[in-house]
């Protein structure tokens, strides 16, 4: 199971605590989003969490610090950063890659960086050299020919978008997802993980029938955090929620 967290949401300490409890609950990969105003792929839930963090001046640097703390806590869990090119470009790219490597993160996933973007190429090349994965996405609208091209660039695992649209906006059609996973798998042996529209453990369970190798849960966790920002038991409760997902996925 892959869980998406907004870095330092609601703050560094609690965020770290939440991720720790999630790892304890059995999360396989932590996707840590770094906040940005852009967030053009995000629905209102994740967008609000980003805005919360931006108001508190959370930066990509802070996110990397958080990732480092997570790695210190657990050596086996997968850690990838997720976000938009804006922050990475300004970091700038070279430093971003060396910092990623130095905190022993596994890779990252950029929402708005197709391989047509030269800056993506630059980032990917540097990451490859450091054995870091630049996770690529496949969308339902991705045509066969493009998928073929993309498959040469896959690294780590493949993020399969369950529908075209922004996070948190729709539910996935199981049959469509199944066909898509199948199609992707004809081009790659890497794990294919299914994301978008998975809100409940029940959704996650159903998704396993599509042949995917993992599911990504985002908005529903972020939403829970957003609704319980001041709850002192928040990390523990998130852990429990993760547990219900992990149980269903066993």
């Amino acid at each position, binding site marked *: 199971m892959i869980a998406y967290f907004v870095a330092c949401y609601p703050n560094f300490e609690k965020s770290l605590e939440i991720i720790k409890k999630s790892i304890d609950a059995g999360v396989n990969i932590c996707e840590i989003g770094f906040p940005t105003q852009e967030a053009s792929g995000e629905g209102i839930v994740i967008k609000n969490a980003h805005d919360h963090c931006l108001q508190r001046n959370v930066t990509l640097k802070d996110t990397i610090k958080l990732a480092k703390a997570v790695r210190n806590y657990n050596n086996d869990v997968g850690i990838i950063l997720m976000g938009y090119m804006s922050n990475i470009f300004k970091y700038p790219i070279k430093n971003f890659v060396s910092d990623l490597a130095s905190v022993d993160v596994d890779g990252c996933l950029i929402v708005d960086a*197709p391989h047509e973007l030269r800056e993506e190429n630059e980032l990917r090349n540097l990451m490859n050299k450091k054995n870091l994965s630049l996770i690529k996405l496949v969308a339902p609208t*991705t045509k066969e020919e493009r998928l073929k091209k993309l498959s040469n660039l896959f690294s780590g695992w493949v993020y399969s978008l369950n529908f075209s649209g*922004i996070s948190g906006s729709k539910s996935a059609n199981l049959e469509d997802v199944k066909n898509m996973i199948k199609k992707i798998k004809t081009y790659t042996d890497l794990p294919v993980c299914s994301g978008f529209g998975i809100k409940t453990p029940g959704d996650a369970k159903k998704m396993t029938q599509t042949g995917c190798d993992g599911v990504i849960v985002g908005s529903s966790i972020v939403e829970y955090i957003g609704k319980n920002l001041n709850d002192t038991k928040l990390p523990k409760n998130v852990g429990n929620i993760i547990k219900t997902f992990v149980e269903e996925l066993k």
Partner: protein
Amino acid sequence: MSTEKIKNSLKTGSDKDGYFGEYGGIAAGENLMNNLEELKKAFEDAIKDKKFLDEFAYYCKHWIGRPSPIYFAERITKKIGGAKIYFKQEHLNHTGSHKPTNTLFQVLLAKRMGKKKIICESGAGQHWSAAAATAAKFGMPIVGVMGKIDCARVNQNLIKAKHYGGKLKIVEGSLREAITAAIKEWSNNPDYYYLIGSTCSSSPFVDIVRYAQSIIGKEMREQFMELEGKLPNEIIACAGAGSNFTGSIFEFLDEPEIKKVVVEAEETAALTNGTKGIQQGMVTKFLQSDDGSKSLGGSSLGAGIMYYGISPQLAHLKDIGAIEASAASDKELLETYKLVAQNEGIGISFEPAAAVTEALKRAKGKPKDYIICATACGRVEKDLDVIERLIGKDFE
């Protein structure tokens, strides 16, 4: 698109990856890549289709009322004392700005692609009302997105768009947020046509909008040759993201002896004060925080030129010295509006007032046969109440 091929011509559009030098490109989500590819092909196809181009020309003439005339601003010229100041009267177009030329081109393109519904963003509501009018003309449903800040001050445009049948979604913020939100809507509905209002966002949008708007400069060439027997020495136009400016100067890009000056709102002068970054689907200059997570910039009276980014093509052209950049303050916009109204009997909106402000500065002391053409890309109606509130007493 130019008839003679010039070596190192600047009139070639973006390169195969959608870049202009180091700016431009595609910074979009995977779920939009197919759309953008499809759009690019459709665009390249369409502009090779004589029938399509004829149709565009037909509606430009009959519906929009093109060509917009050039106008010698005689009394202002006399007042300033120097170069001859001309206006390219884009405000005489249907809906009152340069915007409908672009919306017309793209709605025709959307129809040609078999699209059934249109989505767009808007800053000043000029693009929104032009887009809604165009959609109505061709019987297409349309959804628009605008920022709350802008909606409040351009109310007439919203009413007009509503009457044309457009459905508006209002989001927090201004044009930046409207573009982001419109892109999100598009992501959710990739079967829609995304009708962008300016030369920004991912390739091929910059080329498409530039293609449509470059009719401005083409008309200018013909009109100046007819009226003055020569081309203007300087062409000045305002820019939000840059469609009006690009449209005004593209025709002359391979003629370096013609100065080209883009004028931004002082508060959001991305070309002058911005830094390179990747946002809003493109690599270009932005007013942004050092870490790229936030946009910067204040508020201008010119709702249509209040954008924290700029066309990537313009960022490139400025870098290579092909264009100059300047900016105008709110105070200047008001003063220039007044001057133009009282001396030429033309009520321009705040956006072109930025261009005319710069023209006035540059005209001073120039030889009498020196010609400066400023594009008057909007009429005052949408700004009238604000002007009356701010300086109404000046006219009493």
